[in-house]
């Protein structure tokens, strides 16, 4: 059984079926053709694309601008995608399949940028820097999902938890005038919701999708209620201190990477920290083995003396904790005030990132970065005077999520016992 082997071995078996292999290859070839037909053909021979490689307002880790010949760059990108696609169809990349389609997607995005910025200048580093920031809630949302789902609980209420946490963080942060306490407030509110999710799904065995929906509706209503009743009238309740940029000494001086990754605010560093903790804890420790076994085969875990109920509560509460950090990001790390519905579906995109990343922390972060990047493109391109309506650019992350879900969900990759209440016999 794949389920048991998944518990015993550290690595999960990723099987790529033949039709999937072919479909992936065809998609990759299509990407290559798209780059060629849509971008290369419409670019003039001597067009140059100028990428500014230092985000605005940063004086550490400076880097010279890149000036690329547009047409040649685009041709190379098209060839890379076509080559990957052909190899995929003929031989197949096996467990690297997801990575390869990711590379093709990157080629497409980069190609799109080169094409849009032909004969213009685009601050690529600034875009990447904002992409990292935009990826934070999505990646943390995905981590939150991983923690719950590895223990066997589907958590579709990450969105609601994030929304509630963003409001709580704004209010607590404003009242105490302390961003750290605001963060703590956000986390606690989210954990409270996670507890409700846990009680409903574990104790009362309510369908987990429905109990998640309860929390989502509750959060939407409650935050809008409190916002209209108090926050819009009392300025002192919605004016929190934010976490500011902290350049990491040494690391921030690395050209390009420094400004993008190591000259950010606390939440970006928290994202990396949680990534490392999660990756190690899930796969190198006894704790992680237990959590995963409960999600894969609770009956077997129970037989071995693992307390399934307790472990699942732990998973859900930790999931709430991480979702709380993600929520606090909106008010304390990004916008500086709470607005109704400000999470705008990021929690759900986080779930898609989790699935894309195959329930692995590192993969989820890669996917989160991709979504963040798609988000950043939309906001930057309108500055370039692109002819594409901004609404269509705003659709990109949602479309990518759907394509990812359609293409990447394979059989037997989700934790096996996920969604099923555990009943002791």
């Amino acid at each position, binding site marked *: 059984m794949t389920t048991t082997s998944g518990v015993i071995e550290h690595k999960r078996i990723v099987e790529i079926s033949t039709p999937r292999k072919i479909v992936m290859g065809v998609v990759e070839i299509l990407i290559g053709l798209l780059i060629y037909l849509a971008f290369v053909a419409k670019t003039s021979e001597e067009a140059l694309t100028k990428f500014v490689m230092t985000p605005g307002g940063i004086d550490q880790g400076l880097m010279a601008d890149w000036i690329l010949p547009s047409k040649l760059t685009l041709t190379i990108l098209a060839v890379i995608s076509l080559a990957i696609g052909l190899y995929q169809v003929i031989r197949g990349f096996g467990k690297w399949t997801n990575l390869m389609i990711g590379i093709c997607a990157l080629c497409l995005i980069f190609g799109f940028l080169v094409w849009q910025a032909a004969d213009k200048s685009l601050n690529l580093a600034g875009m990447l820097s904002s992409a990292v920031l935009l990826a934070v809630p999505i990646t943390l949302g995905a981590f939150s999902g991983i923690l719950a789902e590895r223990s066997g609980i*589907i958590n*579709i209420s990450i969105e609601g938890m994030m929304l509630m946490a963003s409001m709580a963080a704004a209010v607590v942060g404003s009242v105490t005038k302390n961003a750290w306490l605001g963060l703590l407030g956000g986390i606690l509110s989210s954990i409270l919701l996670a507890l409700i999710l846990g009680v*409903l799904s574990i104790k*009362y065995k*309510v*369908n987990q*999708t*429905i*109990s998640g*929906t*309860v*929390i*989502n*509706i*509750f959060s*939407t*209503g*409650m935050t*809008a*209620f*409190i916002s*209209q*009743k*108090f926050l819009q009238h009392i300025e002192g309740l919605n004016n929190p201190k934010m976490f500011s940029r902290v350049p990491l000494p040494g690391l921030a001086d690395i050209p390009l990477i420094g400004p993008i990754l190591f000259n950010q605010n606390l939440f970006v560093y928290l994202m990396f920290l949680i990534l490392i903790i999660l990756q190690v804890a899930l796969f190198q420790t006894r704790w992680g083995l237990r959590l995963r076994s409960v999600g894969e085969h609770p009956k077997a875990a129970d037989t071995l003396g693992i307390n399934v109920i307790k472990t699942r509560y732990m998973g859900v509460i930790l999931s709430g904790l991480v979702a709380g950090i993600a929520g606090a990001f909106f008010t304390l790390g990004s916008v500086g005030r709470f607005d109704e519905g400000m999470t*705008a*579906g990021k929690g*759900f995109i986080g*779930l*898609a990132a989790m*699935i894309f990343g195959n329930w692995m922390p590192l993969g989820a972060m890669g996917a989160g970065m991709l979504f963040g990047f798609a988000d950043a493109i939309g906001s930057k391109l309108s500055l370039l005077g692109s002819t594409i*309506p901004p*609404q*269509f650019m*705003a*659709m990109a992350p*949602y*479309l990518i*999520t*759907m394509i990812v*879900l*359609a*293409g990447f*969900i394979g*059989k*037997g*990759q*989700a934790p096996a016992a*996920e*969604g099923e209440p555990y009943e002791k016999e």
Partner: protein
Amino acid sequence: MTEKKKDLGQEILKEINQDQAETEHVRKPFLGKAAIPLLAIVTGLIIGALLIALTSQSVYAAFGESIGKGFSQAFSEIGTAYKALFTGAIGDPVRMINALGSDDAKEIRQAFNPILESLVQSTPYIFAGLAVALGFRSGLFNIGVEGQLFIGAACATFVGYSITGLPAWIHMPLAFLAGALGGAFWGFIPGFLKAKTGGHEVINTIMMNWIAFRLTEWLLSGPMTRPSSGGMPISPIIEKSAEIPQFFPSPIRFHLGFFIALVVAYVIWWILFKTTWGLNLRTVGTNPRAAKYAGLSTTKSIILAMSLSGALAGMAGAVQILAVNRSMALGLSSGYGFDSIALALIGNTHPLGVVLASILFGTLRNGATRMMVVSSIPIDIVDVVQAIILMFVAAPAIIRSIYRLRKPKQEEEQIFLSGWGGQS
């Protein structure tokens, strides 16, 4: 019209009993099945009252003076709020009785306007609730009703204003149908993805929601914008011939759409419980494994169910445009999509239950508008109350332990929703 309503009610009631006799062997009184939802609603309203008292500054001020004053202030605030809720939703009973005695037709209409307006508000809920209920019955969780509703509304609006010179008996049904088709298409996509690739419909429908919002935003500020709007994202006004008629002169908005909704509810009930296809669909929904062994095509069933569910959601948008708004703006929906989830569950995913729950919610929301005016309580309190009601309906054990009810002899029918992996 009352005859029609009664007829439908009786038909559906009869069916409930039959259904129970078939599937559960023991006949339970209707109230037994309704007890949990009713108690859930009452408890939800009580918690709503607590929320009103807890978030009122004057209540805290009164508690500062003395505990007795605090309680009396709290009760008076709750009283004012819920009285406004009631008169806003049903009407002022004294005025209604006086109006009936006065023989003044206009006064009668106006006195009864709140309750008629409640039915107006219920109409999109009925469609949207049916959409979600149909999904649940076939094991699908359609959170995309909101987006399907927007697309349906956009399609209905487009047909409503762009085609001119048609007689009303063709134009109105055509516009309504366009709405249904638009919604069906928006439901078909996630259904197809679910059936063919296993992409989970919960995430896909939510993504489709956001895409629908952006798309309508673009449509209303671009191709479908009203020439005189001055940049506002709003569509042209639909032709007179596309309007679903209202029964009384303005400001009473009670319209034919309400009865269309009842008829559609009946049709959905008939499809679900009287046709082979409905049986297949329900089998796939409650026991996909058995359906597979019986050789039923889950793929076809999923795609059809999602499309039909989307069509219903599209009708919700169409009816709102054609009967009430008459042009499309971005603030079209007050969250019908998410409310409809609660409706479907409170109505036990049965069309009759959905109709009743929709009327209740339409009434609540209509009343809450007045409550917002009188006591300045944000209308979003309805969402909070809804979430709580939904929680209690989904976890009846909580309600049972609060009210010390006995556990039913057999398990309640469970809605089957699968995990990310699709069909297991």
